[in-house]
């Protein structure tokens, strides 16, 4: 880790400064771990539970009373997190996304979401980020399943900077949440430091004939590049970073798409159930422009390869984003 030393990262504000400075070399999980440690120092009621991830090793070493390692037992992780809310709040519960959400879904549904408890579920291995680990470790249904649940806030940060801010925001917001974290550091889409607000989409490029709506690191990079490429061809294109998938920023979506001829959604998640579906729900009800969805297709995605290769094979690419847009406006 590149850093300015632990001493400079004592407070939440220090961590946010540090992560902003180093946003291009820190991963989402790195940023989450740094933010959580600072939050834990600030709030002794904050608890961190982990199902066999070593993400929070520094937290465990410094704040052992606030930390519990539950091993690879995600159902118990979520149940214990719910139980601990009688005294601890918030309770962060981290695990591999496909397991923390998929395996423990029933515990989340009844015990956490239904009960509206301050449990923040943190899932790593977002999308295809586990690459050649194979489909058992790809989190492809987590956004769709969590957003179906009442009370849930669902966030997929675009970079380390958003991951740190989302961690802080979720810790200070009541109710249950899912925070989706990916793999290694990716380039940041942010050139300017602007405040992060849960549920408020970020306009990264002004709206045009085409609107790209993306969530997560690679999809936002694809959207940014595709918008530049369309502009170079004389087709104006906007870019909305929908970091919060639930509650979806309906107003921002309607405003940004008001004069667009097509909306293209991009996510490293199943093309059904997640961001694309959420956008379709809003635009269909409001009578908005047609939508093209880019995501992982409806097949068992058991190709072997690194994240880049898998994204390419799933069509989560600049080329496909441009093609989908031109299919309507071209």
């Amino acid at each position, binding site marked *: 880790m590149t850093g300015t030393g632990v001493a400079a990262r004592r407070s939440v504000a220090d961590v946010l400064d540090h992560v902003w400075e180093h946003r291009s070399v820190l991963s989402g999980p790195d940023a989450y771990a740094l933010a959580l440690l600072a939050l834990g120092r600030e709030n002794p009621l904050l608890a961190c539970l982990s199902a066999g991830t070593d993400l929070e090793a520094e937290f465990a070493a410094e704040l052992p009373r606030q930390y*519990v390692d539950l091993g690879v037992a995600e159902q*118990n992780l979520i*149940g*214990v997190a719910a139980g601990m809310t*009688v005294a601890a709040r918030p309770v962060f519960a981290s695990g591999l996304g496909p397991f923390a959400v998929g395996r423990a879904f029933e*515990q989340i549904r*009844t015990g956490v979401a239904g009960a509206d408890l301050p449990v923040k579920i943190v899932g790593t291995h977002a999308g295809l980020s586990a690459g050649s680990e194979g489909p058992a470790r790809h989190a492809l249904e987590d956004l769709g399943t969590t957003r179906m649940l009442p009370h849930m806030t669902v966030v997929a940060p675009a970079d380390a900077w958003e991951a740190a801010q989302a961690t802080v925001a979720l810790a200070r917001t009541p109710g249950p949440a899912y925070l989706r974290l990916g793999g290694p550091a990716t380039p940041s889409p942010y050139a300017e430091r602007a405040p992060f607000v849960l549920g408020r989409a970020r306009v990264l490029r002004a709206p045009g004939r085409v609107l790209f709506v993306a969530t997560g690191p690679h999809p936002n990079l694809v959207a940014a590049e595709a918008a530049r490429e369309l502009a170079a061809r004389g087709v104006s294109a906007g870019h909305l970073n929908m970091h919060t998938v639930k509650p979806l920023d309906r107003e921002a979506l309607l405003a940004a798409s008001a004069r667009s001829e097509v909306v293209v959604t991009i996510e490293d998640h199943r093309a059904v159930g997640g961001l694309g579906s959420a956008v379709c729900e809003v635009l269909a009800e409001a009578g908005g422009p047609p939508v093209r969805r880019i995501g992982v297709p409806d097949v068992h995605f058991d190709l072997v390869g690194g994240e880049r290769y898998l994204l390419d094979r799933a069509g989560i690419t600049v080329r496909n984003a441009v093609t989908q847009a031109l299919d309507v406006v071209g």
Partner: protein
Amino acid sequence: MLTHAPPRKDAAARLAADIRRRVVEMSGAPGGARLGGSLSVADLLAVLYGEVLRQPAGDGASSGDRDYLVLSKGHASAALYAALAATGLIPDAETGTYRQDGSRLAGHPLRRLPGVDFATGAPGQGLSLGLGVALAGRRYGYDNRAFVILGDGELQAGSTWEAAMAAAHLGADNLVAVVDRNGWQGGRRTEDRMALEPLADKWTGFGWDVLRIDGHDHGQIRRALEGPVRPGRPTVVLARTVAARGVPGLHDTRRGNTAVLDAQARRLALAALAGERP
């Protein structure tokens, strides 16, 4: 009679009789009540609510030095509601709304009913919730005990054993699991559907302190729940019980575990229960 007994023993006995009476009355609700498991757990709940639990009227958000009860076997909701009504935590007449349209009393308990800290009904979830409560008490300096009433059938769910393993590893000696071992699940005996025995060995193997009692003997229940615990070890009380205990003809039978009683059957059952009262 019973003039030599301490008053609180009378209270638990009266509470158990009251719970049984209300359960039989609730069995006339739409969809009925799960008679077998609600009557098998009646004495355990009577001693817990009558004598053991401190400040049982939680809403899930309150903390402090209090005890928590998680009815993991949520299908025995009729017995829980009976205990809450009999002890004044919900209005006396509310059990008459059991499973009626618009009622607060679902077939499996909902959170935010006074006295219910966690919604239950999904088998195998309660022990994790109780472990969380126990850990929170230890980590945040509260004198909490967490009691979790488990059905025997739900011990087939793997999540129970995830919690069992973690509780021993984490030394949660303020966690008490009570297994209502009535031997039935739905229309079959547990040992025919998916055998649980040797059950004590399983808990011992997972690192728990195991107590075996008659789950209808108030003295044994009291001693098990109030006795000293082994430091650093969670306790499981294996309470041998009888499904539909108290209703003649239905004890420990397939029909008794799942019966819906019509008005005539309820009258007969209530008369039999009244005859049993001290």
